């Protein structure tokens, strides 16, 4: 991969900081980064360790801490992609049956009004949604709702929404079709929206 070439082509002694300091300087930051995406603390710890080890091999000099931090984060991102790719081969990654209900159970199945929202399930008005983003309790609810997403759906959602990776790139990296990607994203959004409405906005 491109990133690999970037740091093995020109081995240099580490620049600003000593690798001994890396864990103290960047450990928490990288751990949080990995934890959001991998959701399991043990996996996140492994990813962080792998990142530091790969960085050790490469070695680069930097003009500042933030450049060093970004570089490490870049290595970690690739490690996480590797993890997703491995996972996509081992299980039925697209897992389209899961949450199939999200897609169809909210809508009138037949008869007049077919395809319309079932009355009780139609999206409600979310009063002052923006303010919720400043509320710690909201984030707890968000964490719980996001935690309910199955691993593969969460992975795709995070890549797209948190990292802003282009759909095409997600498809290439994870070897899934664009059609599958859109279905997964759609179901993630349907499920998250419903969970947040039920557990947060409906109670305001």
């Amino acid at each position, binding site marked *: 991969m491109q990133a690999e070439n970037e740091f093995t082509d020109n081995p240099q002694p580490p620049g600003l900081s000593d*690798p*001994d300091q*890396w*864990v*103290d300087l960047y*450990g*928490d930051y990288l*751990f*949080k980064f990995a*934890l*959001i995406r991998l959701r399991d*603390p043990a996996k996140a*710890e492994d990813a*962080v*360790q792998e990142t*530091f*080890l790969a960085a*050790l091999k490469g070695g680069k000099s930097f003009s500042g801490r933030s450049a060093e931090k970004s570089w490490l984060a870049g290595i970690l991102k690739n490690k996480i992609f590797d993890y997703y790719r491995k996972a996509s081969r081992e299980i039925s990654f697209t897992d389209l049956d899961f949450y199939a209900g999200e*897609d*169809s159970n*909210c*809508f009138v199945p037949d008869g007049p009004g*077919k*395809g*319309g*929202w079932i009355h009780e399930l*139609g*999206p*409600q*008005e*979310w009063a002052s*949604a923006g303010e919720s*983003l400043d509320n710690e309790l909201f*984030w707890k609810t*968000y*964490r719980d709702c*996001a935690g309910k997403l199955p691993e593969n759906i969460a992975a795709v*959602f*995070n890549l*797209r*929404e*948190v990292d*802003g990776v282009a*759909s095409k790139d997600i498809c290439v990296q994870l070897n899934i079709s664009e059609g599958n*990607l*859109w279905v997964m*994203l*759609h179901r993630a*959004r*349907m499920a*998250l*929206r419903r969970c*947040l*409405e039920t557990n947060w906005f409906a109670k305001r």
Partner: protein
Amino acid sequence: MKKLASIIRMLSPDCKEAVRLQSKALDRPLTGLQRIGLRIHLALCVWCTRYGKQIKFLRAAAKQGNRDLTANQSLSAEARERIKRRLQTGND
């Protein structure tokens, strides 16, 4: 008049399709025809209009949550030591 109404009905999606289209639109532009049909539906459907706003909100929340979600999480002392040790042997 009836014919026009049925043409309009044909052009515009139902709610199930409208939410799919709005989700898709977050990741890739819709075709002109899809956009027109969706607009017509949204003009008549408050639920789907809310849905569109809400998934945009989800996008903003996900981005921000990147910062807030793990605010209290950190590398355990044990993991910290373990990784430091591993880096030492990796360095030899």
